[in-house]
């Protein structure tokens, strides 16, 4: 049986893409397999771990719980879209580097997208708010302490108050 294909138009990190995919193609797989953007990681594939989190029209969503065809017409930001225009690390990425916020890095793309949106909505989170911001993402390596520090560090970097290290 050949599956019917659907035209899907996505603007990913500012770049328009048109692909034809079966209706059952998850957005996570469309990004990774059809567009070759493998920065978005797939861990559990049922919405629990958060590693596949991307921004859909600015809001964080699980790309493993969304069909590409449903998302057609939307703007998607993946971890690849978080670097600054000159290719240097964006503030949240820089904060993870500064604070040693990752070890194996598998979960990191989901944290970076989640925190990017979280700090846009709440630019100076309290310690508890920083923890709450990442509560929906799992990391099996770090123990989270350094990720929470990275949230606070990223807030400083974005506000321009952080001392460079």
């Amino acid at each position: 049986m050949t599956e019917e294909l659907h035209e899907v138009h996505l603007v990913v990190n500012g770049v328009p893409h048109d692909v034809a995919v079966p209706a059952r193609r998850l957005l996570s797989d469309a990004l990774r397999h059809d567009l070759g953007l493998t920065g978005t990681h797939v861990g559990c594939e049922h919405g629990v771990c958060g590693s596949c989190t991307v921004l859909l029209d600015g809001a964080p969503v699980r790309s493993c719980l969304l069909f590409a065809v449903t998302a057609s017409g939307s703007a998607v930001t993946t971890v690849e879209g978080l670097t600054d225009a000159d290719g240097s690390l964006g503030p949240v990425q820089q904060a993870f580097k500064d604070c040693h916020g990752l070890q194996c890095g598998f979960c990191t793309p989901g944290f970076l997208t989640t925190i990017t949106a979280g700090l846009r909505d709440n630019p100076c989170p309290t310690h508890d708010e920083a923890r709450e911001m990442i509560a929906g993402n799992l990391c099996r390596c770090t123990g989270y302490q350094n990720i929470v520090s990275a949230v606070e560090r990223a807030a400083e970097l974005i506000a321009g108050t952080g001392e460079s290290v």
Partner: protein
Amino acid sequence: MKPAPFAYARPTDLASAVEALAGNADAKVLAGGQSLVPLLSMRLAAPAMLVDINRLPDLDHVTSDASGVRVGALARHAAVLADDEARRIQPLLALALANVAHATIRNRGTTVGSLVHADAAAEMPVVLCLLGGSVDVVGPRGRRTVAAADLFLGPLESSLAHDEIAVEAFFPALAAHTGVAFREVARRHGDYALCGVAGLVRLEGPRIAEARAGYLSVSDVPTVIDLTPALSSSESLSDEALAAAGELALAALDPQGDIHGTAAYRAQLVRALTARTLRAAYDDAGRRREQP
């Protein structure tokens, strides 16, 4: 972990959506997908067709008036939670929604979808039942209103026919002299609760005229229990009265043990959360009386 193939329709008007559903006995509605897509990926469900309702017009509203809050089928949990008018008219909505999954899931999942999904571990079905709300559904036979009491038939089973689409939920406003509260215990904040309680207390003067509570995760369907008999004789809430309310609730519930907690532990959660929730709802009613 990939969904099986399915035919896909993305209608842009309600009549076509109903027609598509009615035309395929194995078709299912796709709303936010936060419950359905995991089921498809794990192949616990493999419908022949999905009718994606995300492009239907005029269904993403959250509108409030003195009678209550109306939530359209495409209003995401996040939009309902952020709506100040809804919070003012019926505070229990936001109190409970803050416990529904994580923010990222709430950005996509719909409140109406979680009602139709009819999970006895979900917060919103219990809230709808406790408040005596309803859901409006549209099918080939027209539009009808289903009362909360008639909506939940069993685990993950609502009384909607397969070709009906839920278009709007109605949550009645907070009545005068009434307070509400929500408490749950989950292994991590945002996870499905081991037990959760939504409580409502109405005062007449200093006396408790009505006390009811809705329970999640300790029965097959969302269950509301009238606890007034345990409390109505006391003018202020005594620990003994709250303990009696907990026992009254337990008699009507059936907490089951599973990998996350034993039946005895869940029963203890019913006792503890009944007391905490009623106390908080009682205090809330008192506060509202002082600052109308």
